[in-house]
């Protein structure tokens, strides 16, 4: 008996340590980012930092075009990946016959395993020329090309997580809805999907997180021109994302220089943006759950 409780004690502690360590690592990473990035605030005047010109070798450190570039590419990728990913998940879990599901799910996972540099090559050689001709643009290396490929990268994440969330909805819910005379579509839209809401939202967040952090593909296909996006048409112009900037320039900078601190500052901004996205998602899920509990009680 005492042996069991000793083992239990050990296991509990181990799991607890693992849980805390995740938080600890995130904190340490953030502290490191602050240590390396905060000096940028002292070295670069705020008016320069929040200006629209990024040309670090001449002392122009305006990060607005980079933030804008990341937002345009990520929102574009989200607009492509969320509807496609969710409908794929719904089809695989709710509509497809069993044999089809067994083919589709592994295929989607294979898509998720494609190295992003490979997608970048396909983007340069196939997508960029096609997009240039199809939309009659000056160049095919645009934010849209990046968004399209990032969409392809985040779809597998969204499908996988959303499908698991749908799978977790008890079969009785569906049976009950169908028994009440709901059509299969009404069952999916009004019962299954809302019941899987928090998992689906997690899927979307993970997908968007994958898109905002992706580097190699965007560096290869978005043209990397640091232009401040000014309207929805910016999607069809070249853009430079924060991740591509860090990746392209980090190898060159001398550690401790202003440029080095500026790149870490960009890393900090990137971290804060993904933190904000995650916290918003968590808050939304939490509030909806509270509301659902209130209604049920």
């Amino acid at each position, binding site marked *: 008996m005492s042996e069991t409780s000793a083992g239990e004690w050990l296991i509990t502690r181990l799991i607890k340590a693992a849980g805390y360590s995740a938080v600890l690592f995130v904190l340490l990473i953030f502290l490191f980012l602050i240590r390396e990035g905060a000096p940028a605030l002292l070295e670069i005047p705020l008016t320069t930092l929040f200006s629209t010109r990024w040309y670090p070798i001449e002392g122009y450190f305006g990060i607005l*075009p980079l933030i804008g570039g990341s937002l345009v590419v990520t929102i574009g990728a989200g607009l492509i990946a969320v509807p496609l990913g969710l409908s794929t998940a719904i089809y695989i879990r709710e509509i497809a016959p069993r044999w089809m599901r067994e083919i589709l799910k592994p295929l989607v996972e294979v898509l998720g395993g494609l190295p992003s540099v490979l997608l970048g090559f396909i983007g340069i050689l196939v997508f*960029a020329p096609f997009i240039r001709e199809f939309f009659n643009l000056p160049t095919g290396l645009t934010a849209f090309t990046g968004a399209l490929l990032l969409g392809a990268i985040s779809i597998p994440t969204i499908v996988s997580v959303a499908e698991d969330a749908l799978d977790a909805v008890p079969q009785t819910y569906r049976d009950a809805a169908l028994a009440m005379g709901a059509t299969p579509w009404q069952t999916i839209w009004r019962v299954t999907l809302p019941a899987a809401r928090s998992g689906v939202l997690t899927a979307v967040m993970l997908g968007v997180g994958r898109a905002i952090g992706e580097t190699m593909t965007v560096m*290869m296909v978005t*043209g990397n021109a640091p232009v401040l996006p000014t309207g929805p048409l910016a999607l069809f112009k070249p853009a430079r994302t924060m991740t591509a900037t860090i990746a*392209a320039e980090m*190898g060159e*900078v*001398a550690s401790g220089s202003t440029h080095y601190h500026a790149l870490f500052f960009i890393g900090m901004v990137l971290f804060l943006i993904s933190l904000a996205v995650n916290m918003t998602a968590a808050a939304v899920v939490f509030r909806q759950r509270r509301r659902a509990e209130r209604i049920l009680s």
Partner: protein
Amino acid sequence: MKPFLRAGAAPLLLAGLLMLMACQGPTPGTPVVSQPSALIENKGSDTLVNLALAWAETYQAQNPHVRISVTGGGSGTGLAALINGTVDIANASRPIKQEELERAKADGIEPVEFIVARDAIAIIVNPNNPVERLSIDQLSDIYSGKINNWREVGGEDRPIVRLSRETNSGTHVYFLEHVLRKGNKEDRTLFSTDTLLLPSSEGISAEIRQNPNAIGYDGLGYVTEDLKVVAVAKDPAGPFIMPSAETVNAKTYPIARDLYMYTPGEPQGEVARYLAWILSPQAQAIVTELGFVPIVP
């Protein structure tokens, strides 16, 4: 593709060699024959990487006890590695900057410069572009955003898409100083913000090959048959000169530069022998083969 593959192949080759060497290690019972072996770490300019690899291959074939590892990454990357003390030779397509020199001295490293070859920067356009020649003034106006249509320089009515290497490329810095600013140190002209900054030579060739709107620049050694080279004139009235070994040595082609290798302090032993060999007629013949211009007339 070439710089990518070759640059990637070098560390692989090295790893392979190391594995071979490990396999040939002394087995118990056999007398150990100690082979004098020297490893030279060589890193930097992407312009120089193919040439440096060709040199290293030939030299290693003649001197089997020497191992030379060549990697690219850009002139800034190579010089940063030199300052950090991680390479024996840094390749650069631009002279070391004052600030880099100071940082090296602060770390107790005294970089020594060797001019190892010359290179012409070719202006390249799509083969279907009717423009045959451009003056430095026109190039400066194109890249700074004053000229935005090919019609203004005698071409078709098409928008101009400007392509450039990333800011960590020595070619980028050279082009900024000697073409955009026409060699004038007081000039603060910058690249137009919508200039596409591509991370590799291959990215530039791939885009120009399929896009009739594009203009780019790259080292003469990287220009392939399927790209069109434009004749350049220092003076708007001409003469317009095509880049070649003859025109570079005759100093008539206006956008040519020296290529450098830097060592931390006066080179010793194998590194000194290698550098002496690079300046020999045999090594300079390889320079000609690869489309660069040898320094020995």
